[in-house]
């Protein structure tokens, strides 16, 4: 049962504080949506969770182990936490299938024959069986983002982080990516999303956190945060985006 517990996490870039004391608990099977204006710290928070950014203060525990301890091997954390980015970041010199197979092959030392069936199944599950051998520049944005999700899932992570994964997509392609998230949600995947898709957050999240200036100003069930926000800033934000 993976749980990720953040306690009083601080992070600055130079003299610019981005996270100013974040407390957050991600329990197994939960889906948490982070909402808030650009620059409120959502992306940085996700990057801190998989140790792409070292934190300045506070702690991050994964199953009771303090992974934010300086010197802790970040590779072991990242192998258990999958991340999908706004701009897909597929490797352009590899086919979709090779993108998905690189990390399992190098880290689990599995042969191509051993893992190809498992990864092919992933492509089939998300409707990309006929696109496996295409290169990223031969795929639409929505397809590329779905491949990026498959690439992260190929490592069989226990937690998935999604950093505004639909923000770079044309509106008509957003749906196919959100469907993948719905599918993962139904399978019980533990997920943390930074998102601007308020309707989606309201429909599926267990917990919605509103970030403002590096703090979680308000969090709770979606119907509570969206319908009866307690904070003036939350109300102002929601009235701008809804």
């Amino acid at each position, binding site marked *: 049962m993976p749980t990720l517990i953040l306690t009083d996490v601080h992070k600055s870039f130079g003299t610019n504080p981005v996270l100013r004391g974040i407390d957050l608990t991600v329990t197994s099977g939960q889906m948490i949506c982070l909402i808030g204006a650009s620059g409120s710290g959502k992306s940085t928070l996700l*990057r801190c969770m998989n140790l*792409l950014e070292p934190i300045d203060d506070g702690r991050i525990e994964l199953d009771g182990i303090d992974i934010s301890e300086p010197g802790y091997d970040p590779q*072991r954390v990242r192998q258990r936490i999958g991340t999908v*980015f706004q701009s897909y970041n597929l490797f352009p*010199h590899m086919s979709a299938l090779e993108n998905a197979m690189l990390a399992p092959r190098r880290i689990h030392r599995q042969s191509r024959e051993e893992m190809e069936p498992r990864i092919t199944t992933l492509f089939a599950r998300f409707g990309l069986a006929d696109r496996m051998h295409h290169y990223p520049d031969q795929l639409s944005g929505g397809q590329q983002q779905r491949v990026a999700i498959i690439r992260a899932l190929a490592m069989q992570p226990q937690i998935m982080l999604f950093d505004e994964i639909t923000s770079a997509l044309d509106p008509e392609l957003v749906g196919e990516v959100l469907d993948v998230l719905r599918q993962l949600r139904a399978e019980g995947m533990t997920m943390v999303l930074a998102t601007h898709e308020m309707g989606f957050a309201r429909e599926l999240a267990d917990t919605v956190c509103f970030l403002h200036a590096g703090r979680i100003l308000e969090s709770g069930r979606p119907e509570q945060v969206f319908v009866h926000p307690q904070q003036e800033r939350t109300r102002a934000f929601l009235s701008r985006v809804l």
Partner: protein
Amino acid sequence: MPSRRQIFESRQRRRANLIAASSTGAVLVALIVLVPMAPGWDAVQRSFFNAEIFARTFPGLLNAFLLDIAIFAWCAPLIAALGLAVAIARDLRTPALYPVKLLAILYTDIFRGLPVILVIYLIGFGVPGLGLPRPWNSPYIWGSLALILVYAAYVAEVIRSGIESIHDSQRAAALSLGLSSSDTMRFVILPQAIRRVVPANMNLFIALQKDVALLSFIGPVEIFRQAGVYKSLLANFTPYVGAALIFLAITIPATRYADHLMNRQRQARS
């Protein structure tokens, strides 16, 4: 039935071609008429463009050029390997390997800062001067080493610029899959970086093809030296013209090919 625009454009094109052709023709005629009017033309023609000497020396020059090709052929792979190693060494982030990084920086600074001919002299005359036994005193070995050291420094810089041109998000994506930083470099960054700098490296290898001739200063009788021998023997400069033509036969197609690659890359990226 062509449209009005098509008619207009094809007329424009014909006009442009006509102007280009007639101005080129005018320049050519001027050259052909004016150059032979120069007072020394007869002497120049006799000593540089002597058909009989050209025919006599050309096969020998071609034969000597095989040596240039051989030197190029064994230098090029070693340059590529050393250049890649130095580029990677310059990008090391492990503190324990800092001396290696420092050495790589020093190396590129020194060998990019020296004239090729000077390095060839220093290594080509200096090292055999240590009194090494045959075959270790061969100018082929030390001359080639000089070329390899100089060119690998340039190749390393080109590859490093390629590595730096890969957006950091690629690194972030690879690392967040749990890949180690060396796997990230090997499977994600380098394959993209090297592809990106192929045209720039092509230009370096074309320059190398020409600089192989510099080895003649320390002994090997390659084409430039062979042309010099013929010149002394026949008291005529035509062999140099022959050597120039042989070089151009290789370098012009190679340059065109590099340009073609670079154009294709520019189009692919825009």
